[in-house]
Each structure stands twice: as C-alpha cells, then as structure tokens.
C-alpha cells in the first residue's frame, strides 16, 4: 500500500530566486495584514510607553547611589529599558495564538495542504510583520523616551548593523519559541498552560524586567547557554546599548545564531511529528 500522509507533495526547487521571491511575497502579506490593525497597535504602543516609564524609574532608583548598576551607566539602563519596550512588539513576545487556534478549530488543514512547509509560510509572514513593527512599535517609544530621559546612543558605527542583525535573529528565535508553544495544541488542544509558562519565562528570564547581569554570574550564564530566552531581548539590548562586560557582541551573536538554527530544526521536527498523529475532526 502506498504511503498516505496528511500533506501534499512539495513543489520541487526550481531555482533560488523563485524560492526567495515566494518568501518575499509571503513577508509582504504579513506586513500588509498587520498594517490594518492600527487601533490595536496604538493601544499597545501606549501600554509599552507606560511600562517603559515605570521600569525606567525603578532602574534609575537602583542606580541612584553610584550612577551605575551591574556595569550599566544610567544612560545605558534607559536605552536598555526603552529598546526593550520597543522590541516587545517587534519580536511579538505575547499574544500570538494564531497557530494554536487553527489547530484547535481544524483550519490547520489549509496550511498543511499548501505546497510548502507550514513553518516557512508562518516565518515569512512573521518577518514581514516584524518589519512593520520596526516602524510603528519600535521607533515611537524611543522617540518619547529621548524627550524625557538621557539615552545612550551607540558610539561605534558597527553597532548599528550588528544591532539590526541581532534584532533579526531575535525575531526568528522568538518566532520559533512561539511556534513550539503553539504546537503544544496538537497534543493538548487547550493551550493556556504552556502559554502562561512562556509568558512568565520570556519576560523574567529574557531580560525584560531587569538586565540579566543583575543575577549571579553562574545563573546568568546558565540562562544564556541553556535557554533561548536571553537571546530574544537581552541579546539585542546588550549589543545596541554597547554593554562593556561579558558576553560581548561577538559571543552574543554567535549564541543567537546557534539558538536560531537549533530552534528552526526543533520546529520542523515537532511539526513533522505532529502531522503524523494529527486527526482533524468534522467535515
């Protein structure tokens, strides 16, 4: 008996430019789709700004005695806080349940019938969305902060391209984590538990509430090496705020590349595994 699978055969590679073109078209769709959610973006922006102020004042109070905290100057701390608030929307830390919802309702079938891997479609659209978020979610909080606080601007020209690379890797890593969390719905259907654990870990262990350098060194390194969370926010924040301690920018980018590769493979493996056991109900 021939092999029966839930998915259709893939379209074979013809040439590189066609693959890139398809990926680009999907990214453009992601960009356009999210540009229609204007009111929601405005509300999130206001919220990010409020929490930016709260975190700024707390960290300023921490550094009030000496003017530094764990190797960050007060200006670097402000850059750290406000870049972080801007990046929440770029990496889309919270609130992405599209895949889990589609798994629960059975709409996931549509994704599996497409002639390319589901993860490729979702990743392309997510990169397009992140591109839009760089314009509408990343920039405004930084502008507001620059009016109120003293921010540290990058001193070295190389920081700008390195920062951009780090942010891109962070988007890919965060996307993979969200994809894996959403994939739990293949097994659980009700995905609230894994989602809650993700929200807790990504914020606290990722450097959103406080720079991870505030932690004891061994714990900080264990988080960097053993979990992807620091690679999502702490990594681009340290690269762009030019934190002088260790890990330096080269180590950070190396860790990010490793985590991105590892997680992409993990996503693909989990997806394949899920497709083999998936039973879609109803007609």
């Amino acid at each position, binding site marked *: 008996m021939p092999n029966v699978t839930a998915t259709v055969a893939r379209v074979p590679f013809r040439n590189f430019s066609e693959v890139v073109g398809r990926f680009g078209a999907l990214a453009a769709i992601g960009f356009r789709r999210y540009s229609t959610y204007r009111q929601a973006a405005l509300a999130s922006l206001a919220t990010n700004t409020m929490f930016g102020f*709260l975190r700024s004042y707390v960290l300023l109070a*921490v550094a009030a*005695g000496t003017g530094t905290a764990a190797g960050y100057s007060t200006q670097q701390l402000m850059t750290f806080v406000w870049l972080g608030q801007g990046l929440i929307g770029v990496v889309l830390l919270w609130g992405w349940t599209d895949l889990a919802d589609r798994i629960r309702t059975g709409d996931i079938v549509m994704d599996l019938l497409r002639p390319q891997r589901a993860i490729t479609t979702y990743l392309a659209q997510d990169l397009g969305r992140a591109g839009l978020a760089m314009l509408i979610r990343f920039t405004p909080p930084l502008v507001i902060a620059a009016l109120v606080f003293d921010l540290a601007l990058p001193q070295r020209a190389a920081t700008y391209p390195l920062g951009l690379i780090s942010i891109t890797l962070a988007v890919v890593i965060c996307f993979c984590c969200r994809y894996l969390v959403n994939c739990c719905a293949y097994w659980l259907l009700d995905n609230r*538990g894994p989602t809650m654990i993700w929200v807790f870990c990504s914020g606290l262990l990722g450097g959103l509430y406080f720079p991870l350098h505030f932690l004891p060194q061994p714990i900080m390194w264990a988080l960097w090496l053993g979990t992807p969370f620091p690679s999502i926010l702490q990594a681009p924040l340290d690269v762009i705020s030019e934190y002088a301690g260790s890990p330096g920018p080269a180590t950070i980018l190396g860790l990010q590349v490793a985590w991105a590769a590892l997680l992409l493979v993990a996503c693909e493996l989990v997806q394949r595994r899920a497709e083999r056991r998936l039973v879609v109900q109803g007609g």
Partner: protein
Amino acid sequence: MAERPHPYLALAVAQVRSQASYRMSFWMDLAGNLFVLSADLLALLIMFRITDDLGGFSRPQVLVMFGISAVAFALADLSVGNIERVRAYIRTGTLDTVLVRPLGVLGQLLALDFSIRRLSRVLYAIAILTVALRSAQVSWTPSKALLLVVAVLAGAVFFGALFVATATVAFWWIESGELGNIVTYGGRDFTSYPISIYGAWFRRLFGFVLGLGFVAYYPALALLGLPDPAGLPDWTGWVAPAAAPVAAAVSALIWRTGVRHYRSTGS
C-alpha cells in the same frame, strides 16, 4: 416553596462549577496565577541584590508597600477583574442578553465571569504581606492593625473602581484593546514601589491626580512610622483610604454613562 438562593449567588456558583469541571485547565490556571505574582516579586528582590535602598526605603519597607498593593489588587481582580471582558460581550452581543434580565447589569457581569481560581493569588499575596510586615518590625498598636485592614480593603475598592472605569471605555471604543492596562496593571506596578522613586510629573499625575499614591505608599508609611520624603504630614496615611470611596463614586458615574450610551452592535 423551597427557598431559592440569591440570583447573583446562583450565577456565580454555576460559573465556579462549570470551570472546575475542566480539571486540568483549572489547576493549570491556578498555578499560572501564582507565576504572574512570583515574577513581580522576583524582579523586586533582584533589584535589591544590586542596591540597598530604593527611593530611600529598605527592602522590608518596600516589601510592605508591595504586599499591600498585591493583596488589594488580587482582591479587586478576584471580585471585578473579569469586567475586562465586557469588550467581548459588546462585540458579540452577549450584553443584550444581560440588559434584558431584571437584574443589575454590573452585578450580573461580575457573577457571569466569577472565577474562584483567582483566590490563589489573594492567598499568596497575603502570605507575602505577612512576611513583609514581620521583617519590617512594625510596632503594632490596635489602631495600626485597623489601618492595615482598612487600607487593604480600600485599595481593593480603588483598583476595582479602576477596572470598572477602564472597562467602560469599550462602550465608546470597542477595539480599545489593552489600553485599560495602563492604569490597572500599570497602577499595580506603580503602587508596588515607593512613589519617591518616580519623576516629579509622573508622581504627581499617577500618585496624586489619579490617587494611586494613597493605595499602598501612604498607608505603609503610617504603619512603618516613617515620615514622607515629599513632606506631606504624617496623618496622610491615616486618611489615605478615603480616596477609595471617591474613586468608586466617580467610577460608578462613568459606568452608568457608558451603559446608557450603549448601542447594540447587532449581529
């Protein structure tokens, strides 16, 4: 005729029973609620790894403020936090069902979504406050004990008023999204730390105009017997709970205006 339970109570009991029937989900939610509060507490404790004082206060003193704020917020969240979902009710039209019943609108909405699992957060917050008060070595008097209870309850009323007032925005702006979080969850974070750490305009706007300074900061100063660095008289902490009824009255007014403004979205 058999005695019937109060209609609001019956609605709430039905909710609890329906939620508890999905056992796994129920326990996961219960655990998740503890995670959320632990994250805030851990963040605070890690700040104190780097420094010995925040805005002129020691760790036990800040923890007292954090504890009062946490208990008050958890109580408000338990009783009226679900009002956030009024947005979904307006969009889907469920609110119409509620409006035609011969019961108060606000009371029904709260009973409709009552969730017992948030009780875990209240108990956890009470534990934090207890530990904080012990380590801060408060010199207890009967009047201070009374102030503590009143301050916590008043704080709960205050946060509850914020929840109701911000949820009302949905009557005008259905897609208002997480905008209300600015003063509800933002308010919780604001009150968790001494207001002396905030910049002058930020402290005045949220601490005094909005009144968040009276929730935890001033009552905590009175309990700890500390003077206010900003120079307000020592009795401020003793009258601070009076801010709660004012907030509740304003909030009720906003809510009534909102309900009257309501036009069904149709289907």
